[in-house]
């Protein structure tokens, strides 16, 4: 937009200064959005804290002191991993304006089948883990593929189909677990798949920490699955920023008709995007299955698919942004646990999460509109000047 302002030739000194001003303002605007969001989120959280009878400053300082302890940092990173994967899965869809709400069902089904396959076979270490990962990706992708096929052949909105597929996936997973895949343990009220053999368990990174001179506190590990998240993040970055397909995705997302007119195969792009999104979604539950619980059971974490939508929104679909968003969510989650020691109700963190997501979305939209109005005004001024 501002390029239009600079476009007219013959730069009078007076005009250059006027062009420079919006540039400075643009930098200001870029900082304004996250800043305004942070201030607003803090404000809402403080009001919530005050309303529940807790001094906000004391709470925030407790969050910081507890949250920066090594154990909390490790737990935060571990909990951020599935959130990050869920965020990336949703963001891949967002890139071409596809709303994959089905991450929830995709990862539950994928984790169940991957855990069962992993427990049923015997393979040497890396191969075993590789097989489990592959099964999870395949299951997640095929479940998303159902929505993709419905969309391109029948024009069913992926919003509707993925929501409904969530319900079906939950039913199938519960049925398979209860009737076929579970192994009951005497005296337990849990129902879970048989435990994964040693070879399928993802190694933790405590050795790496030791190498850095950090000793992980007893009972807390740095889960190895963080590596998978990093790899997925890098691949996602390459996909959206450095690949033709990423460009096509974006083109279809912005204007499918224009994209088709310029030779993009929109249906194929839609299918591949949803498959990729579902494949990444399939990995979400594996941090738990391969890293901590070694089985899929009743205590399997549900709801990450929906949290992932918030993470993707907060991270604004960028690989780095989603990482920060996932870490922030995991940090708040961890705080909700430690804050209970000073009698802060655990629901506060849900309020904080909501406040942050809302204020970020609102702030960026507000700033975008302000920037658009200013650009418009600048263009008008410039054209008036030329006319004069």
């Amino acid at each position, binding site marked *: 937009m501002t390029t239009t302002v600079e476009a007219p030739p013959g730069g009078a000194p007076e005009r250059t200064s006027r062009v420079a001003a919006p540039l400075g303002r643009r930098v200001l605007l870029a900082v304004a959005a996250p800043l305004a969001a942070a201030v607003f989120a803090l404000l809402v959280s403080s009001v919530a804290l005050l309303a529940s009878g807790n001094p906000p400053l004391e709470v925030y300082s407790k969050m910081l002191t507890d949250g920066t302890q090594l154990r909390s940092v490790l737990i935060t990173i571990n909990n951020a991993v599935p959130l990050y994967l869920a965020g990336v899965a949703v963001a891949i869809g967002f890139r071409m304006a596809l709303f994959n709400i089905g991450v929830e069902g995709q990862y539950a089904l994928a984790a169940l089948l991957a855990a069962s396959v992993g427990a049923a076979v015997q393979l040497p270490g890396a191969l075993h883990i590789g097989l489990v990962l592959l099964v999870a990706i395949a299951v997640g992708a095929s479940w998303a593929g159902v929505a993709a096929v419905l969309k391109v052949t029948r024009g069913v909105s992926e919003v509707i189909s993925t929501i409904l597929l969530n319900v079906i996936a939950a039913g199938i*997973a519960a049925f398979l677990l209860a009737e076929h895949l579970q192994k009951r343990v005497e005296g337990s009220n849990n129902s879970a798949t048989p435990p994964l053999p040693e070879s399928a368990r993802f190694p933790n990174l405590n050795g790496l920490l030791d190498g850095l001179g950090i000793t992980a506190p007893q009972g807390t590990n740095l889960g190895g699955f963080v590596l998978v998240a990093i790899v997925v993040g890098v691949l996602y970055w390459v996909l959206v920023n450095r690949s033709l397909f990423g460009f096509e995705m974006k083109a279809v997302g912005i204007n499918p008709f224009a994209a088709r007119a310029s030779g993009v195969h929109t249906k194929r792009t839609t299918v591949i995007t949803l498959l990729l999104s579902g494949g990444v979604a399939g990995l979400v539950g594996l941090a738990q299955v391969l890293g901590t619980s070694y089985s899929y059971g009743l205590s399997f974490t549900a709801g990450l698919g929906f949290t992932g939508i918030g993470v993707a929104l907060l991270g604004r679909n960028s690989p780095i942004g989603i990482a920060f968003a996932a870490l922030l969510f995991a940090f708040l989650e961890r705080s909700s646990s430690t804050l209970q020691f000073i009698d802060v109700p655990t629901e506060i963190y849900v309020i904080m999460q909501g406040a942050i997501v809302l204020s970020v979305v609102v702030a960026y939209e507000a700033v975008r509109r302000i920037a658009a109005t200013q650009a418009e005004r600048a263009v008008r001024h410039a054209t008036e000047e030329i006319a004069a």
Partner: protein
Amino acid sequence: MRRSATGRLRLAAVLTVASLGLLACGSDSGTETAEPAASSSAGGAESDVRVGLAYDVGGRGDRSFNDAAAAGLDQAKTELGVEGQELSPNAQGTDRGDNLRSLAEEGYNPIFAVGFAYAEELGTIATDFPETTFFIIDDSSVEAPNVKGLVFAEEQGSFLVGAAAALKSTTNSVGFIGGVQTPLLEKFEAGFVAGAKQVKPDIELQTAYLSQPPDFSGFGDPAAGQEAANGMFDAGADVIYAAAGGSGLGVFQSALANDALGIGVDSDQYESIGASNPELQPVILTSMLKRVDVAVFDALQAFVRRRGDPCRHDLRPRGRRRRLLHLRWPGRRHRRAARGAEGADRQRRDHGPQHAVADRSPRGRRTLPVRRPLR
């Protein structure tokens, strides 16, 4: 149709008494609390015991399972003078293990893990903190000397309300609505079905669950409960047992609209729901109380007094249980007397989950004809 209020009350009274009897525990406490040493140490409301309590998802205030555990802790605070720290997991329950570990690290002892979902991580945590005693509710699978499982015979209380439902049904058709289809809830269902069939073998039974794991929303979704109940009432049922936590409210609302009856669970819902919705009281026939509060309080009392063992909570009369215990540990009191209090304490720790006694006894199996749950 109008139901006789006195009939309802009489039945409710019988069942309330029955449910209070759910605590047939305390092992040999019947004789031992009579000892002067025990009464003097237990009478005072002063104690340096700091209790940690980690709830399951929902936390304090769910008007159901977690609140029952909270009630047990509250009672122990006033009567035993213990201190308590409570932690609730986040909505997804991802920090259950972390919470448990935090409590252990802060030095709380004993620590309660409220819910079978803790079993997975409790094993390793208990090994890391061998000096801490852990109690886990609804699970007896954790094998560690410092872990005790508090389990309940949910099917027995459900058997009673099943019989009550069948007796009150005029259409010869009753229903069961479970919150989430888990093995634990299927025990409720099995007991209810068996109880109803015991009274009327030809009774028609409908069952439904509101959600499937790992989606646990069925315990807090009154709208879903109402819808499921509407369907059952339409199909001819006139008494429904709602073993569905917070979703029970919707079942009672549906019962009111359909001029039928509902049966509550976990707390006396005639009182707890009646407090906010008095119009629903006439349709609440009775409630099946699992008495998690009694289990928690009892375990704490046993811990504070350094004697007795919490165990499986069921409807068995006290006398028989004592005999069972003596079968398992002959001469136990004898040895304890010889060793003194310290020895008894060590012995208490070494026992492991004692409920296994009741679980494995042939008698326990015979009391209840367990039938395959209907689908």
